[in-house]
């Protein structure tokens, strides 16, 4: 009996190690989904609009990193900050020139415009990079054995940077005056100007931050899966969008939760089942979540105004 228990426990620990190892991969993928999902959710929060160009901004983050690294021998952190800044400014610019003039117009115009902006970005990139590109390794990643698990510097960095960015954003949104204004716009944009708050500036800032985080995610994704192509924004972008919906679109913490859930489910399905089942099972599960929580896990029903 003792022997049987020992055998069971060692079988269990083998299984547990495998699960733990896969969890690290899930954290890596989940944190990237979460970073992208934040951009969808923040923009939806302030404008109740889906920024369909967001996936392509994510893709541009990877290409921006590729270009910067090719021409300027800068340290990793500097490149990351440059990518965040560049993609963030581009996101804010798109809002200014493409979305703002249509505000107050029919909703479908905004959707078409966003899709159009995405296609323009994707095809401009395609013209310049007709073939998939190899992402440069910005540093030599070493692997560590910790309690029998393998984890690389790159994985630690991706998870660490993502979590740091998310904590920073959470602080920004819940503790600073700009964050308060952003949440106020999400609740009732019409009343915000009466507080003396320049709503348009806050909306620009929202796009800047959302796109910047998407760009950072693109760079990290490119480092983790180092073959990048202009089409990568579409599939990954859709998945992150779905993560945002699962978490409750408009909710910042929901986007993070949704990103980690989606990353976790995808990795675990592949770990334990044939990989062709990945999308089928992930999305079925997510549909089930939506049946029970139609506004997503942390989302709230739209304002019922009197």
């Amino acid at each position, binding site marked *: 009996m003792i022997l049987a228990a020992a055998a069971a426990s060692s079988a269990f620990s083998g299984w547990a190690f495998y699960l733990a190892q896969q969890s690290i991969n899930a954290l890596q993928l989940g944190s990237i989904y979460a970073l992208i999902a934040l951009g969808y959710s923040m923009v939806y929060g302030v404008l109740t609009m889906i920024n369909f160009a967001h996936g392509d901004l994510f893709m541009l983050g990877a290409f921006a990193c590729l270009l910067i690294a090719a021409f300027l021998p800068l340290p990793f952190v500097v490149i990351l900050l440059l990518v965040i800044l560049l993609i963030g400014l581009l996101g804010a610019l798109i809002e200014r020139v493409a979305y703002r003039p249509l505000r107050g117009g029919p909703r479908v115009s905004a959707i078409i415009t966003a899709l159009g902006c995405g296609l323009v970005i994707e095809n401009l990139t395609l013209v310049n990079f007709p073939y998939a590109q190899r992402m440069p390794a910005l540093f030599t990643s070493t692997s560590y054995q910790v309690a029998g698990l393998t984890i690389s510097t790159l994985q630690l960095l991706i998870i660490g940077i993502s979590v740091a960015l998310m904590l920073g954003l959470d602080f920004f949104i819940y503790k600073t*005056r700009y964050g*308060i*204004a952003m*949440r*106020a716009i*999400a*609740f*009732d944009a*019409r*009343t915000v*100007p*009466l*507080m*003396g*708050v*320049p*709503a348009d500036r806050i909306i620009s800032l929202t796009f800047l931050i959302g796109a910047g985080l998407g760009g950072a995610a693109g760079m990290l994704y490119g480092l983790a899966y180092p073959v990048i192509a202009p089409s990568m924004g579409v599939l990954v972008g859709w998945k992150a969008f779905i993560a945002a919906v699962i978490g409750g679109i408009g909710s910042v913490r929901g986007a993070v939760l949704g990103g980690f859930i989606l990353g976790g489910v995808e990795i675990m399905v592949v770990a334990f089942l044939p990989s062709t089942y990945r999308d089928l099972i992930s999305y079925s599960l997510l549909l089930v979540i939506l049946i029970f929580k139609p506004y997503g896990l942390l989302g*709230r029903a739209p*304002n019922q*105004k*009197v």
Partner: protein
Amino acid sequence: MSALTVENLTVSYGDIHAVKGLSFEVREGEIFTLIGANGAGKTSTLRAISGLLRHGGCVRLGDRDLEGIAAEAIVSLGMAHVPEGRGIFGNLTVLENLKLGAWIRRDHKAIAEDLDRMLTALPRLRERLTQPAGTLSGGEQQMLAVARALMSRPRTLLLDEPSMGLAPKLVKEIYHVIREINQTGVTILLVEQNANIALKLAHRAAVLETGTITLAGDSAELLADPRVREAYLGA
């Protein structure tokens, strides 16, 4: 001295002319009330004055023409507006709502003092400071909306039907607060359907009917006027 001058104000929603050439003046330090029934154009008038609605005619704050000045910039000129339905941000805490009201200010020490004074006057808000404002009762929300507007230290305050949806006892309470605010030197433009209580509080008043002023004068005169008594006071 005139705190707020409105000349020939017009507001249209497509083909609907909601405000048709309104003129009135609110004097420094007084409470002026516009009374009118549902759909008379009270809210449209206030929203036009505070820059939320495109309008015709002229609005001056003191001697400053507000033409072309954005709503958020008008707040910095010393005007605050408590909108119809209170406009509380239900997802923010009571404290966050109040802080947002002080957006245009940078004098952190004075803001903290104002906040403390406000909360001492309204202890029910202090007890609920970290609660989402959406969980407050209607009366508490109205108090919060007024307190939030005061956080910008306005010299002129616009109030859109502060009595709406409140029990008589709460209406009395909020009107008491409005009188106290006025006594600190804040000029008040109040629009109301509840003519009885508004006329008793205000110094001067005007009656608004389908976008035009039909009667104007001292509140006491209007209270005694048989036309007002018949149409608005049910006498």
